[in-house]
């Protein structure tokens, strides 16, 4: 673990992973795009974003958003390890905690139907 924590490539990975995870998740929520849809009443999994089926209860996109975020951020994080050190060092680390705060108004907006009913 110590070797990992002192590795420059791992630093690049975590910085790119954490920044892109927030962005990917918010974009998934705002766009509604999900790599798969889960039907909790029947246990059915379908690729992409699908609508509820008749007599099969509601659908859930959150699992798709979460897995999509983890896969997307992992790919970008791995690509980040290929970047030169000087490029990643230019990325402000403050963005890692600022982006989740900036995400709040966007996510609140995406939930507008719940606030206005």
């Amino acid at each position, binding site marked *: *673990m*110590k070797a*990992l*924590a*002192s590795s420059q490539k*791992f*630093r690049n*990975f*975590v*910085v790119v*992973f*954490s920044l892109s*995870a*927030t962005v990917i*998740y*918010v974009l998934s*929520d705002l766009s509604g795009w999900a790599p798969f849809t*889960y039907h*909790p*009443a029947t246990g059915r999994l379908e690729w992409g974003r699908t609508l509820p089926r008749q007599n099969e*209860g*509601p659908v*859930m996109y*959150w*699992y798709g*958003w*979460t897995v999509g*975020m*983890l896969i997307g*951020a992992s790919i970008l*994080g791995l690509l980040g390890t290929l970047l030169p050190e000087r490029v990643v060092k230019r990325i402000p*680390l*403050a963005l*890692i*905690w600022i982006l*989740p*705060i900036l*995400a*709040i108004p966007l*996510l*609140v907006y995406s*939930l507008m*139907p*719940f*606030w206005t*009913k």
Partner: protein
Amino acid sequence: MDFLFDYISVTTFWTILLIVHGLLAIALLGALTHQAASVLMPVRVPSDGFVTRFRAVKGAGYVTAVCVLWVLTFLMGAWIYIKYRIYVRIPIERAGFWKTQGFFEMKEHMVTIGLGVLPAYWYLWKNADDAGTATARRWLTVVLAAICWFSFLVGHVVNNVRGLGS
């Protein structure tokens, strides 16, 4: 898993999972609150006061526990979310508690974003000697603690609306 239902009811099984989820969340809340207090109000002069002792912890010692607890709490939440969607959310919507449901959706979003920034949190605390990353480490810890408190309180309210025993 079906063999379990020879001994306990399905409702008891999911109730146990909900309680475990809550207990993990409490442990996470305690660890993150200690750590956030230690970075926001570091102790310069030791004393015997309760608040001073509370914030006098070494934040770096909590990082692995926080990461493990966040992931475990998240996984337990994701597991019981299946039942929540049908047996809790639908009645909540029928009862017209739209804002309660909205806050639950917000909790789900924020804990997922928290999961996404967890690797950076781990890295920053594992390099706690690096003064150049102190600001990012401090505020990321505070943001995670705020997400944890928000999620805990929302989960508590939703449980009051329709949780244990309903």
